[in-house]
């Protein structure tokens, strides 16, 4: 039995033009310690898959099994690193991570241990120099590091990352990828990461899950990346195997599943109906 199993996930959102099936029969089995990338065109439902695993969305059909037990609601065992970091702007770097630590280890760790664990995780992402800064006072890359530290500090069974480096400039992104590989080498977490970046997917993943275009998106192809670790981006750049993998992903994305020219409606994430209020 696999560690994490996505069993025939389908999800349908009600829209003004009738129900819209975003995911159709997504199946995926993930072993412990595996690094999976989800790649696909925007609007294909990658985030929806991630949000279902996180428990933030409920699948219409099918379900998610973690260690053989169904998960229906969000919880710290499936920590999420959000694309826009989602740090609480009124708390310092330390307090943001500490909030998660206090919540998850309220009973199992003493106050001193929780303090040490917070510092340990911030040191892991090289953010221990800015403990008392607020999110507004640090760069985008640093915010994302803190977001990762917060997720890691929950000691999750699965780490879910929704385009974690999508908002960063390319130089910062390569630094972050290197950091993530370094952390992954020590902790060997089970990771599902959404990305748009082919290089990032090949560099980091054990398997790349390529999704077909939505609506009714599903798993198109799965590519095993059989490159030895630790991987180095510079040496890999000249490696023919690495380039073959890149080519395979590019081919899938741009030849077999090219985005149609017609702009499709993209209900990638269902927005809850917002309260409409008059200001005054």
């Amino acid at each position, binding site marked *: 039995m696999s560690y994490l199993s996505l069993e025939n996930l389908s999800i349908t959102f009600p829209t003004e033009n009738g129900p819209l099936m975003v995911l159709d029969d997504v199946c995926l089995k993930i072993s412990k310690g595996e690094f999976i990338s989800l790649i696909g065109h925007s609007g294909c439902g990658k985030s929806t898959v991630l949000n279902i695993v996180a428990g933030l969305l409920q699948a219409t059909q099918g379900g998610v099994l973690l260690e053989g037990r169904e998960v229906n609601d969000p919880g710290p065992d499936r920590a999420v690193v*959000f694309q826009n970091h*989602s740090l609480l702007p*009124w*708390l310092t770097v330390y307090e943001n991570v500490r*909030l998660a630590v206090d*919540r998850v280890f309220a009973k199992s760790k003493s106050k001193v241990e929780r303090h040490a664990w917070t510092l340990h995780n911030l040191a892991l992402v090289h953010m221990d120099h800015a403990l008392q800064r607020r999110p507004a006072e640090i760069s985008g890359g640093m915010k994302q590091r803190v977001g990762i530290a917060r997720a890691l500090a929950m000691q999750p069974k699965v780490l879910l990352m929704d385009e974690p480096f999508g908002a960063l400039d390319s130089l910062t992104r390569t630094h972050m990828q290197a950091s993530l590989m370094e952390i992954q080498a020590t902790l060997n977490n089970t990771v599902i990461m959404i990305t748009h970046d082919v290089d990032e997917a090949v560099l980091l993943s054990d398997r790349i899950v390529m999704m077909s275009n939505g609506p009714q998106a599903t798993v198109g192809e799965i590519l095993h990346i059989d490159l030895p670790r630790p991987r180095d981006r510079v040496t890999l750049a000249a490696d023919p195997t690495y380039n073959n993998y890149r080519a395979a992903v590019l081919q899938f994305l741009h030849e077999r599943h090219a985005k149609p020219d017609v702009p499709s409606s993209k209900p990638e994430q269902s*927005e809850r109906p917002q*309260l409409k*209020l008059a200001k005054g």
Partner: protein
Amino acid sequence: MSKPSNNLINRSFRWLAHTTLMPLVALSLFLILWGALANHINTSLGKFPGPTQVWEQSEQLLREHQAERAREAAFYERQQQRNAETLKEDPHAEVTIRPYTGSPTFIDQILTSLLTVATGFIIASLIAIPIGVVCGMSAPLYQAFNPLIQLFKPVSPLAWLPLVTMVVSAVYVSDNPLFAKSFVTSAITVTLCCLWPTIINTTVGVASVDKDLLNVSRVLRLGWFTKTMKIVLPSAMPMIFTGLRLSLGIGWMVLIAAEMLAQNPGLGKFVWDEFQNGSSNSLARIMVAVFTIGFIGFLLDRSMLLLQRRVSWDKSAVLR
């Protein structure tokens, strides 16, 4: 002199000009225009007061206040003297001190009004913020409350005044009341109008908390209380304060009108009394009250801003 320091002087001069000189110019223009126009307005109580008369009356009001205080002190001193004499003759005699019952001065009326508006505003905030938080967090509750809020929001609290007066006189019956009935009536009227802006702005602030932050709270499985304290309230704080400032501003305006209408002690009553009094100085004294009301309203708003700065996490936010 070197160039950079020259620049600095230039810049500080411009800064001074912007912050001090321009307002002074506007103020002088206003005073000149007012003085000139006032001379041409003849009322049944004489000429409309110009800046000089108003200034004189403000000094006069202060003097009256000091005189009244002196009389009060003298009154108590006389009683004490008399009591001491009585006790000397008969050590078992029962002596009492009767309270002074002079008419309230301008300063007394200001203090009464401030106390009333503060009481009404604090009660309203204590009711409105929780309602706003609950409405913002729960869409069904919002749907339930919204028609009521929309119905009562546009009602002038002065329309409530007769009802409040009657209810207070019927319900607030006590031999030894802690607060005067008029005080309770005015405070409740202020409360009634301070509720709505705070409820509405708090609801909007709470309902528009970033969805990602709420997802963080769901992933962490934060309890209701922690979620409210750590995520919802800090995030809604700027909107809550917008509501509070609107409420306080409206409350202050309404209070003056309510005091005029209900003859409850306070600045409004002072204005009304002067109007009824109809002496040649009345208009100037009313003008003093007008400026006082404006200045206090301004101070109230500033103090809310200072409070917001104290409470707000975002020290860099521009508050105006």
